């Protein structure tokens, strides 16, 4: 029986690094990472079968519902190797599985010596998994290729073993075959983790250095910080210091997760656990930062720390203006747990008071919005997402533009926009349509490699702005859902970009201004003006809707003045009916926004801001 009674297993702060193995699981959404992790918890005995619930480690409801892991966590698993009969401690570090959280993934990887590359053998590897695999290989992690779901009828282990072996550089027969669901092969996998992944190395007597790879806000305990100790050790009640800020904290609690938190006597070299200092805001305990001790501080931080940098911005506005204070409170609360979320108040003439929010990417944006609506019961309207532009004016002034309405009105010498390196994995059937999509989105092909006979890796450089809108949806629909995408920011490039304003009766509607490539300005202008013509009710005067670049009008539609708005009959019983209608309209009036003299129903703004795949791709309906 390879599981060890936890009370008899090697104890935290007293475990020889030789007995420790730190690993993570690299896998795509749906490829069974959480099920495998659950199975490991069961087999090693840290969770009794009766306490087991599906996806034990995913804490947020949204994570469990979407089947994805947003935040990582680390679990200490005692294990007696079936190969050498010795006792070991396996620290499983869970990693976020989405493109927006690449940096957090990289910090989780940096906390490990090895990684399990877990691939669903009915589907094959996906782009994000591949990207994370490359990241693991760059970090010199030992990679154990594992094919999951081998008990599925549609499993093709031979085919995907060849694919994995090519990527990892091993023989196809070196790929382990498991089923997280039934438990097949999981004990063998645990033994291989011990056999293949190197033990952590570090200087137990040197100044303490521990890497923060995750940081989570907990209502009762404040921020819980997850660390991996590289050198020295951490003890309870000790004064610690964050390297990036120099701020000093007292270690109120330190321990390991197994899989519930267990307070302990500290953490030594190679160990993974949590610490609590009483801080209330995750930004005081940032992922990637180095923890050291106050009495014997390290001179050098562990490498790789970066400030989270928002890449995508969008305005969030409450539909009901009265909810503005609630939205502010909700964002304040979310930020305690999300160091990457930034926001500042924004006042839109069209949408009222709200916040300009910055996100790591689209998924991050979606998650934040969904949490705001679900956990705080808000109803929100969001403006189309945009990226960060660096604009240089004719006078040589450089501006960082995160909101199209801040785009300078004068002459612009240069605009630079963020670009990304995108990797798309797809069945070879779809190469043509994918290339067409990428070309439309101003992509430059960097290369293409066949992973196997019928699967290909396509690499493009693309402006981030082209991806943040609806690229992923288009990619999925063009490839029947088979293609996967990963991207990574690689800097800025100059673009031929212009700001298109939408004017109603000569007044700019700030919510609709957009920074687009010059070639697409006309399409955007025609799309928005015709959409608005349909959505805005006729007024008692003619309302021109224009799209303009600066003072130049590039598209125009006209809402003709309303000529008839009267019910012909008004006798006995009609009078009450008509007055009641009037009273109803009084209520509706509250949801009207004024743009100059033009009355626009809020529904029109929402509809105009919601994306429609056909229209975005330039196929404007006539």
């Amino acid at each position, binding site marked *: 029986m390879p599981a060890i009674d936890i009370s008899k297993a090697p104890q935290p702060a007293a475990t020889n690094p030789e007995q420790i193995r730190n690993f993570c699981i690299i896998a795509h959404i749906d490829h069974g990472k959480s099920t495998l992790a659950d199975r490991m918890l069961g087999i090693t005995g840290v969770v009794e079968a009766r306490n087991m619930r599906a996806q034990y480690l995913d804490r947020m409801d949204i994570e469990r519902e979407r089947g994805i892991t947003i935040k990582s966590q680390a679990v200490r698993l005692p294990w007696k190797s079936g190969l050498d009969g010795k006792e070991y401690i396996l620290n499983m570090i869970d990693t976020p599985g989405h493109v927006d959280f690449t940096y957090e993934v990289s910090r989780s990887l940096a906390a490990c010596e090895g990684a399990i590359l877990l691939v669903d053998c009915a589907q094959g590897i996906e782009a994000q998994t591949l990207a994370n695999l490359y990241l693991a290989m760059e970090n010199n992690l030992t990679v154990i290729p594992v094919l999951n779901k081998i008990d599925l009828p549609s499993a093709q282990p031979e085919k995907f073993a060849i694919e994995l072996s090519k990527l990892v550089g091993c023989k196809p027969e070196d790929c382990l075959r498991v089923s997280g669901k039934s438990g097949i092969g999981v004990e063998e996998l645990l033994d291989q983790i011990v056999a293949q992944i190197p033990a952590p190395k570090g200087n137990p007597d040197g100044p303490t250095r521990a890497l923060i790879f995750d940081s989570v806000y907990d209502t009762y305990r404040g921020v819980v910080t997850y660390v991996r100790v590289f050198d020295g050790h951490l003890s309870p009640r000790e004064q610690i210091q964050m390297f990036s800020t120099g701020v000093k904290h007292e270690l109120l609690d330190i321990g390991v997760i197994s899989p519930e938190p267990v307070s302990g006597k500290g953490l030594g070299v190679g160990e993974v656990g949590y610490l609590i200092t009483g801080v209330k805001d995750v930004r005081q305990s940032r992922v990637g930062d180095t923890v050291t001790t106050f009495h014997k501080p390290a001179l050098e931080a562990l490498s790789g720390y970066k400030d989270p940098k928002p890449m995508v911005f969008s305005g969030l506005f409450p539909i009901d203006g009265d909810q503005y204070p609630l939205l502010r409170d909700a964002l304040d609360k979310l930020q305690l747990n999300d160091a990457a979320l930034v926001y500042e108040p924004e006042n839109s003439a069209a949408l009222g008071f709200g916040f300009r929010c910055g996100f790591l990417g689209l998924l991050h944006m979606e998650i934040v919005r969904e949490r705001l609506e679900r956990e705080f019961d808000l109803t929100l309207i969001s403006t189309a997402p945009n990226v960060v532009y660096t604009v240089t004016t004719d006078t040589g002034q450089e501006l960082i533009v995160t909101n199209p309405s801040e785009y300078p009105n004068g002459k612009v010498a240069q605009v630079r926009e963020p670009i990304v390196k995108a990797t798309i994995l797809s069945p070879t059937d779809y190469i043509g349509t994918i290339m067409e999509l990428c070309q439309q989105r101003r992509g430059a092909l960097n290369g293409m490699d066949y992973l196997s006979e019928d699967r290909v890796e396509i690499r493009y450089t693309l402006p981030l702005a082209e991806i943040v809108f609806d690229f992923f949806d288009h990619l999925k629909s063009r490839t029947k859902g088979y293609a996967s995408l990963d991207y990574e920011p690689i800097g800025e490039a100059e673009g031929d970009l212009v700001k298109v304003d939408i004017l109603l009766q000569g007044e700019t509607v700030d919510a609709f201004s957009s920074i687009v490539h010059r070639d697409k300005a006309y399409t955007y202008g025609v799309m928005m003006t015709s959409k608005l013509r349909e959505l805005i009710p006729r007024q008692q005067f003619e309302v021109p809707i224009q799209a303009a670049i600066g003072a130049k009008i590039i598209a125009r539609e006209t809402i003709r003045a*309303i000529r008839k708005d009267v019910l012909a009959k008004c006798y006995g019983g009609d009078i009450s009916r008509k007055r009641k209608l009037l009273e109803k309209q009084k209520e509706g009036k509250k949801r009207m926004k004024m743009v100059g003299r033009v009355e626009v129903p809020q529904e029109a703004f929402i509809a105009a801001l919601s994306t429609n795949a056909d229209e975005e791709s330039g196929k404007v309906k006539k």
Partner: protein
Amino acid sequence: MSQRLSFYIHIPYCAKRCGYCDFNTYTPSELKSGDLDTLSSAYIDSALKEIEMAAQVAGNAIVPTIFFGGGTPSLLPAAQLARIIDAIKSKFTLDKDIEITLEVNPDSVTQEFLDEIKSAGATRISMGMQSAVGSVLKVLDRTHNPESVGRAVSMVRAAGFKHVSVDLIYGSPGETMDDWRKSLEYALSLDIDHISAYALIVEKGTKLAAQINRGELTMPPDDQSADKYLLADQLFEAAGFNWYELSNWSKPGGQCRHNIAYWNGSFWWGVGAGAHSYLNGKRWWNVKHPSSYQEKISQGQSPELSHEILTPENLSDEFIMLQIRRREGVLHKQLSSAQIAKAEEFLSSGFLDSASWQDMRLVLSRDGRLIADKIVRELVL
């Protein structure tokens, strides 16, 4: 001074239901009774009892107008309608200049009926003409022949009625501008002193609504109906019919005083199934079906289905809503300064009559009448 109380008498029977109509009316086949005479005499019995109830509440009132609407009042024997007039005469004081209007169907009305009802006291006949164009009448599901209207008007005149009105409907599916002009010209060729012209409203649940939903018929664009209104107003005015309410034009002295009572906030009692009433700040309406109406009455109960008490805000909204539709318009002093400011925007865009505005009155211009509901919303919201 005694209270004034108009009477509306609802006759909920038609020989056939027209495709666009959602009024509270029933055909003999719907009522599973072929004998309209028996049916109507029982209904009139109930109506007389409701008039008695009205007398208990407001017996000292002077009655300036009575209006028989429907349904098709002319479907009933004139003697039955005369019973109503007699009852009101016996329980109330009739104004010496009383107006008693009767809606008639040009197709089925007879000289004999008109003579009888004239001698019973009726003073005014209103006729559903709708259109002079056969294809339009067909879309409206009307059975009459366009020429029958001219014949009917002659009979009305022969019976000695001083006031005759026709109703027109414009904006039916398929109606061209030319069709409408024909209808207008035909109406103006008649010996009448009043015209009502209504844009067709597609009411939920009607046969017409179903035909439109199925795509068999298409409503013309609102802009075309606007043009039709303008044409009508132009031709009517040229022929000496002046507008006195949005959808009503008359020669001098030909205005319908009963309808004016609705618009100027006077009191009226609606007798019969589904009829609405207004008295002393309370509006109420009767149960809709003639049999439930008769049942209530026979049990000695009020036929009221429900009611509302108007708040001061309701009253001021209604005042503007109704008064703005009239030639008299609204006096500046009856508006708040915010409303005056709002109205000035409409004045500058040509939706208000500028001469009247000088005269401290808000009166809609021809274009303004077409967006009266919008202007009301702007003023009261």
